[in-house]
């Protein structure tokens, strides 16, 4: 299958830091990539660079085989979506209106959202357990509800490539699993691809087909989850001692007191 996204020699531009390693990878339909790394390693910068929001120091990003650079934003938005880590709601707006902006890339200037667009937004809200809150003001939502709304906006947009910056932020355990299950289903059954920054190693090991380890010094290590999810590498990644637990679903890790090796 042709890759949705091809990253060729991508070096991130992070102010105040020496050039890191270059990233080369193909992301194909059905794959779910997890970005792991300590705070400040560049997970957010990578996601925003892949979305074309930041210039890279070097390298190329190809979407469907074409260089992303120079695409009109509207065309980019039809191919990929990004859920940010923080959400800014400057002005009053309802939950439904916020989900509906996901349809923006598919509407022309004079178009008004149709009944179909409303249905897509409403369905996304229901999928994120927000169906009953459609008319609520965004400012009145809790942190977790606001996070689910951001994911509902992405579901409404429904692009082939999903970028998510800590999608499980603020979510309770049930909704963390529900969101990740949804992402897994979308990639497996509908041919989507996802790249997400995560902090929970065990959730990453469970749900991601591939992992990118992003070291604080700019070093990178990537590959299929089975190949990359190794205790010594993870200990070095976070500077944290870890113990491996073997579960029927694969290996898990548990933090131990003390720094990593």
């Amino acid at each position: 299958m042709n890759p949705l996204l091809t990253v060729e020699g991508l070096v991130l531009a992070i102010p105040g830091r020496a050039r890191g390693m270059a990233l080369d990878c193909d992301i194909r339909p059905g794959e779910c990539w997890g970005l792991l790394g300590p705070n400040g390693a560049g997970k957010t910068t990578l996601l925003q660079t892949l979305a074309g929001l930041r210039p890279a120091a070097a390298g190329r990003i190809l979407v469907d085989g074409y260089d992303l650079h120079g695409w009109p934003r509207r065309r980019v938005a039809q191919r990929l979506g990004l859920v940010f880590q923080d959400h800014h709601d400057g002005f009053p707006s309802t939950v439904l209106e916020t989900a509906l902006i996901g349809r923006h890339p598919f509407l022309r200037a004079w178009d008004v959202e149709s009944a179909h667009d409303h249905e897509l937004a409403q369905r996304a809200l229901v999928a994120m357990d927000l169906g009953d809150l459609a008319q609520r003001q965004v400012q009145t939502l809790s942190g977790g509800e606001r996070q689910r709304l951001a994911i509902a906006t992405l579901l409404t947009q429904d692009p082939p490539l999903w970028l998510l910056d800590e999608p499980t932020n603020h979510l309770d355990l049930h909704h963390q699993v529900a969101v990740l299950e949804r992402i897994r289903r979308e990639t497996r059954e509908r041919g989507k691809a996802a790249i997400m920054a995560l902090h929970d190693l065990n959730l990453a090991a469970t749900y991601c087909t591939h992992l990118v380890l992003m070291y604080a010094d700019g070093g990178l290590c990537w590959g299929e989850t089975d190949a990359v999810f190794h205790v010594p590498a993870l200990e070095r990644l976070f500077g944290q001692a870890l113990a491996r637990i073997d579960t029927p679903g694969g290996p898990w890790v548990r933090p131990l007191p003390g720094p990593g090796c």
Partner: protein
Amino acid sequence: MKAGKRAFVTLVVLAGTAVAAVLASVMLGSVRLAPAEVLAAFFGQGGDLARTLVLELRLPRTLAAFATGGLLAIAGALMQVLLRNPLADPYVLGISGGAAVGALLAMIAGLSLGWVSGSAFAGAMLSTLIVFGLAHGTGSWTPTRLLLTGVVVAAGWGAVITFLLAVRPSPELPGMLYWLMGDLSQARGSGLPWLVLLMVVVLGLPLGRSLNVLARGPMQAAVLGVSVYRLEWAVYLLAAVVTAAAVTTAGTVGFVGLIVPHMLRLVIGNDQRLLIPAAALAGGLLLTLADTVARTVIAPQQLPVGVITAMLGVPLFLFLLYRSRT
């Protein structure tokens, strides 16, 4: 659809109220006219006095007030989206001041109305570039930094105006002073403000949804397919044109751009496709009423309308500033 119907009702109610306000404004004054007399004058009938009062004196002024109010309200709404800050207003940010200096320079040079408008636009654009350029800096716009820059630039323009008036005293000085405070007594029937108002309302419809997305932040807007850079420049330009048209007509009337979008958002939300036409109507309505008060409350003396809008706007501004403390 439900939202569409509500938007229609909102606009119809506002338009009806606006027509009533225009009618009332034309009726009231040193000589009170009955509605029947006003309507008769509209159709070229009735007494000479009533016809002169309505068609030559009151109606042109009322229409100028209406257009100015609509323009200022839209300028405020556009700047608020651009800066994601409900305190943005062409007067507070010094854009009106820049336009006033431009217009005043052209007037002192004895240029025609077209040049005065063009010069006002140049002043508004220059002021926009200064304020937004400085306040933006390398980081993002913080409300305090932006407001401070705007207030200082506005004070600077005020000093330039005082200087210009001092070195170039003219018999029209009192009139100019009034004009600078925001005054419609000199405003006479010119189609320009109406033309600009119509243009911005029509442009606002296709731009509206993009502005809605932009109101959620430039990054979010870019991810959803908005060419943020292009749109922001278009809005800068539009806001400067609109402000210049308003200032050319009525001087620096303050706070309409603050009051009207704020009140409207409380009632109809923040969909720019509805907010912009609604701001045109509500801004027009507000300034028509304010000007009617300004010319009748201490008759036969007249107040500049800017005094009335400031009396409404200053407390609201302070309230919003107080509430935005975190």
